[in-house]
């Protein structure tokens, strides 16, 4: 499609909305991973953008890790500190609440997304304003806060550059750190030209696709919103239990704008985001930037401990969000996922993520962490959540980079087991998968049975000698789940057994 065509087919501005409409499908209504993959794999531009981005960031992360002489010790410390918090979460939450309250913060608790959204909407409404500025936050994406605000007549403006691209592009984020990683510069230019003017200061008409010019357009567009905003909304990277401080790391300064300029600030933070002491920050604030953007330090870190008279918001709220986290905590294996500090290193090294991108995971948490966290947060009753633990080749690259040492592959296997158990409970009659694996088990149990089967693949291999791939095989029924998005390599003309026998002979 040429650019002109794509522009003429763009949607008309929906005058009934305060902010750009998000795509119509919800995450939960999205197809299961294998289906999502099929459409995403077909998107060449997406794959090119992703490969470029993940390759760059992988290299930077590895370099920054190598610079730190005690990296592995630091990872172990992070693991231990986060385990201490998770295993005694009630203790630390109560301590943090006490400290925050004493510092002038109003602390709220939310059992689920709906309750969290209601709290935020009510506070915002009480301020008689019809808009809020937002700093990128995974927790509020999880609760779909923007749409709850929209329904209440409040416009929520995303201010992180990538989030702005996603919002203006009527799109969904595809990465937790760089949510518009699936867009290239010329796509961003188109989106800005088409949309910015509908919602505030337009992009300069002669703007090129040079990233500094695009960043400047974002600066101009957002500045008026920052300067006039009365309510800011954030997440939080850490809450320090022994001081009641909140910590947010960012790059662009949009976070500082949201945290500093409005009179009211509401921070929605997952209950697992605690660290016990202020001193513990020395571990996390060194691991996080090096693992996420591959920088020695992110450009800006804000730490605030309650209300400071004459400086920043005078009305501070923190919403402590459960929304499934206590369910994760219940599972002694799965609970290790709660250590996650959302650095995104695991998705940047993941060969599956690199090829399919974030949208196929059907959740705000894509990549390896999404595959273990989402089905725990939401349970394994929907097809998308059942498919997620299988969206991995178990290569283990994620385990190696995770700064808090989450054994992602082990939890993946554990979750697969849970999915199978769930299905068994639902359907006592064997599924196709169980019959298939029973059969495989029978075949592999005895050497001669396996040898027999291999004679068949060997013959096939000889028949198609010169082709490398068969392409997706249109097998109907259950096996299609496995074959429809994968090219099947040609069976080799010689089996390992034959090769070994021959090698022994020629010795």
């Amino acid at each position, binding site marked *: 499609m040429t650019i002109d065509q794509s522009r003429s087919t763009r949607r008309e501005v929906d005058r009934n909305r305060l902010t750009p409409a998000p795509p119509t499908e919800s995450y939960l209504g999205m197809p299961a991973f294998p289906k999502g993959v099929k459409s995403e794999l077909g998107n060449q531009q997406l794959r090119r953008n992703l490969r470029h981005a993940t390759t760059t960031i992988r290299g930077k992360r590895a370099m920054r890790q190598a610079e730190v002489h005690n990296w592995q010790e630091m990872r172990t410390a992070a693991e231990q500190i986060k385990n201490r918090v998770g295993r005694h979460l009630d203790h630390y939450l109560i301590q943090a609440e006490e400290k925050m309250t004493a510092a002038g913060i109003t602390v709220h608790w939310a059992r689920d997304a709906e309750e969290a959204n209601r709290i935020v909407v009510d506070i915002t409404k009480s301020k008689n304003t019809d808009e809020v500025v937002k700093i990128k936050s995974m927790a509020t994406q999880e609760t779909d806060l923007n749409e709850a605000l929209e329904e209440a007549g409040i416009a929520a403006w995303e201010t992180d550059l990538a989030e702005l691209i996603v919002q203006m592009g009527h799109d969904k984020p595809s990465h937790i750190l760089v949510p518009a990683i699936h867009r290239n510069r010329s796509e961003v230019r188109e989106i800005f030209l088409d949309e910015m003017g509908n919602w505030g200061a337009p992009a300069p008409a002669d703007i090129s696709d040079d990233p500094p010019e695009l960043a400047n357009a974002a600066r101009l567009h957002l500045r008026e919103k920052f300067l006039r905003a009365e309510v800011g909304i954030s997440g939080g990277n850490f809450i320090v239990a022994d001081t009641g401080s909140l910590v947010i790391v960012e790059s662009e300064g949009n976070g500082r704008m949201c945290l*500093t300029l409005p009179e009211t600030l509401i921070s929605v933070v997952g209950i697992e985001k605690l660290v016990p002491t202020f001193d513990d920050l020395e571990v996390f604030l060194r691991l996080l930037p090096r693992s996420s953007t591959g920088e020695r330090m992110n450009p*800006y870190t804000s730490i605030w401990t309650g209300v400071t008279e004459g400086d920043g918001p005078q009305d501070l709220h923190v919403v402590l969000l459960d929304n499934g986290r206590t369910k994760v905590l*219940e599972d002694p294996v799965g609970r290790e996922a709660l250590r996650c500090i959302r650095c995104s290193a695991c998705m940047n090294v993941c060969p599956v993520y690199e090829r399919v991108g974030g949208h196929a995971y059907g959740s705000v948490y894509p990549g390896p962490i999404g595959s273990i966290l989402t089905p725990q947060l939401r349970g394994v009753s929907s097809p998308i959540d059942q498919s997620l633990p299988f969206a991995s080749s178990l290569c283990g690259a994620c385990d190696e980079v995770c700064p808090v040492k989450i054994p992602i592959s082990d939890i993946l296997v554990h979750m697969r087991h849970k999915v199978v158990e769930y299905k068994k409970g639902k359907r006592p009659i064997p599924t196709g998968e169980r019959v298939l694996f029973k059969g495989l088990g029978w075949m592999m149990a005895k050497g001669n049975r396996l040898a027999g089967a291999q004679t068949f693949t060997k013959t096939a291999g000889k028949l198609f000698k010169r082709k490398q791939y068969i392409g997706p095989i249109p097998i109907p029924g259950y096996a299609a789940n496995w074959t429809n998005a994968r090219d099947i390599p040609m069976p080799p003309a010689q089996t390992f057994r034959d090769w070994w026998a021959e090698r022994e002979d020629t010795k």
Partner: protein
Amino acid sequence: MSAREEILRRIRGATRDIKVKDPVADVAVDWVYGQPTPLDDVVDTFIENIEDYKARITRSEASSTGQAIVDALDELGATTVLVPDGIDAGWVAALEAGGKTIVRDTALSHYELSDTDAVLTGARVAAADSGTICLDHDDTQGRRALTLVPDRHVCVVREDQVVSDIPEALIRLKPAVEARRPITWISGGSATSDIELDRVEGVHGPRQLFVVLEA
């Protein structure tokens, strides 16, 4: 049941397998806090890392800091300068002599801050290994908006304020946290890598950071 009680009840149910109730006794943390990071030269490392962020840094003797600040502002093309109340009187005199217009923070509005060319501040501590300057917003640095809204930031750091890394810096930031003052860490100017992971210097915060390192 309130949401608070309900969540705490869920947590206690979910962790009933954990028998040792004292968090510190239950999970040991093998880490020695507050250790310096071994560096060949702390100050040189700091300078290199600031430059790596594409921020400017120059060195001055205590007697010439005022002039160094004026030179920095000239280089940045700034005429109006926001000056927090605790800034050294000698530097203020140098600014006046250098033809700069001094703006004091008389509860300025966001728009007035936005119309000022630059801000001049001191710092609390700086971490060399990551090139991080830590502000604790005392009267040499002013409230947070001062170092955020104007487009240029000239920051004077004394060499004795530069430590090896974050662990040592946190020790010096402790009093500010205990006094519940906000803290801001700055590592270079604002930047983004959101478009194709190309780093672009300068988005919403000050787009230019100029560090004057005083001996």
